[in-house]
């Protein structure tokens, strides 16, 4: 299993990117309410 996750820091960066996209999605839904 260790060799599967040889780059935990890199994983964290891409997981953070995915979370960021998700949050941007929720923010966009809120924004559309204002239109």
């Amino acid at each position: 299993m260790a060799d599967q996750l040889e780059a935990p820091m890199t994983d964290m960066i891409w997981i953070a990117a995915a979370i960021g996209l998700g949050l941007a999605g929720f923010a966009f839904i809120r924004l559309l309410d204002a239109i």
Partner: protein
Amino acid sequence: MTVQGWMLIILFIALTIALARPMGAFLFALYEGRRTPLHAVLGPVERGFYRLGGVDPAREQGWRGYAVALLLFNLLGVALIYAVLRLQGALPFNPQGFGAVSPDLAFNTAISFVSNTNWQSYGGETTLSHFSQMFALTVQNFLSAGTGIAIAFALIRGFARREAPGIGNFWADMTRATLYLLLPLSVILAIAYIALGVPQTFAASVEATTLEGARQTLALGPVASQLAIKMLGTNGGGFFNVNSAHPFENPGALANLIQMLSIFVIGAGLTWTFGKAVGNTRQGWAILAVMMLLFTAGVAITYWAEAAGNPLVTHLGVSDALGNMEGKDVRFGTAASALFAVVTTAASCGAVIAMHDSFMPLGSIIPLFNMQLGELIVGGVGAGLYAILLYCILAVFVAGLMVGRTPEYVGKKIEAREVKLTVLAIAVLPMAVLGLTALASVLDLGLAGRLNLGPHGFSEILYAFTSAAANNGSAFGGLTANTPFYNGLLALGMFVGRFFVIFPVLAIAGSLAAKRHTPEGAGSFPTTGGLWIGLLAAVILIVGGLTYLPALALGPGADQAALAAGTTY
């Protein structure tokens, strides 16, 4: 061009139109939540899913509730795919012993398959285990297609309902579309593909002896099951690296025709469903007429460009009788290759049977332009209908400005909020395509990915971001995209191109559903006849043309001009 080639194109268009009504009628039953013959078998499964998820399918959702449910469900899909790809080496059904997929590639692939894009920065048979292909990717092929159909249903309800607080229930729409339409049809298609020679096995490979006596290892796997939903769900992600150009993924002319028809059948059917739901099927036929008009023009241009051949090759004394055959399968030739390229880019499929990078520059303009228009010519399952309905709103707005009346469409007044949301939804795609292309075209990390220099290299970058943001997934070829830079930026394009269009569409659906029905009067602009078909087609072409013409001129346009002057890149 040959008579045989044109007969194939005409046959394909005729079959697409013929299938629109029966498919549309079945989709209408699902849209209404009516009982179908399949409910006897699959009804308990559907109810089981609802019980498991604590969902009440009869509970109406407003557009925000619908959008949040959709986003949460899709984010869960991203997390699952990412986990499977990163843990691939420790998971079963991995006869080749593949290790973990790199983090950036896993991120790109997760966004790609959730957004119905299926952009692949990897070769399937050399990167992914059977488990990854089946559990992570094929499952998402169903769910992303089901999501697209659900959004189309929600927007149709917006037009069809009167003073309603809700636009349906996302969980019910997505489950019904997946369970009663995509799953049964995929089983039938997979069996048909197996009968036609497509492999369906857990074996990793088979050893073969070539005619020269050499030993060759041929990759195998559960290809037919992935192929069926790859086309039907307009996903496009191939089991093999060369996609449907591989003989195991496209064994012949009949399999090729079935694949093309399965790309279009649901999108064409949804136009009829729309007409039926708003009480006038001619509304749906008018939309399909615009789609087929633009499609026929696109096929004609691409087929003409490819059949004419490459003048530089002809100049070397090579016969141009078969046209431009670089990057094409001799089993299919220029007609079927041009037709397939236009079908796969008109829809948001992205499967290929020929390398688009090897098309003549003029031939490659149509696949690019199809995607840049937002894939509204039949389009992705569900996505095509909502994309063209955005242009319908824009077209009635333009018509309203010309005659000085509040625009109406299928009994709903189109007011400031709907027009603002429409413009926003339409503007998202060019902002993503052109913005990201510009970024990659000026950064060393972006320029390093090109195989060719000059306008052809620019076309490679433009095509990649067009394909990603339009959720098509086809690759032009040439571009080395499996780098953290491209994997990250293309994933951003895919996410924005999918969800930042979907949310305004759902907001429009909510806004329209709450409105009263306005009966058609003497001053209403007719939206079923030839005038409307011409206006809608013109608005689509003018908006698309003005937006993308400079980029197309810098890429394939300059490439064609240089080629005519004897220069290639």
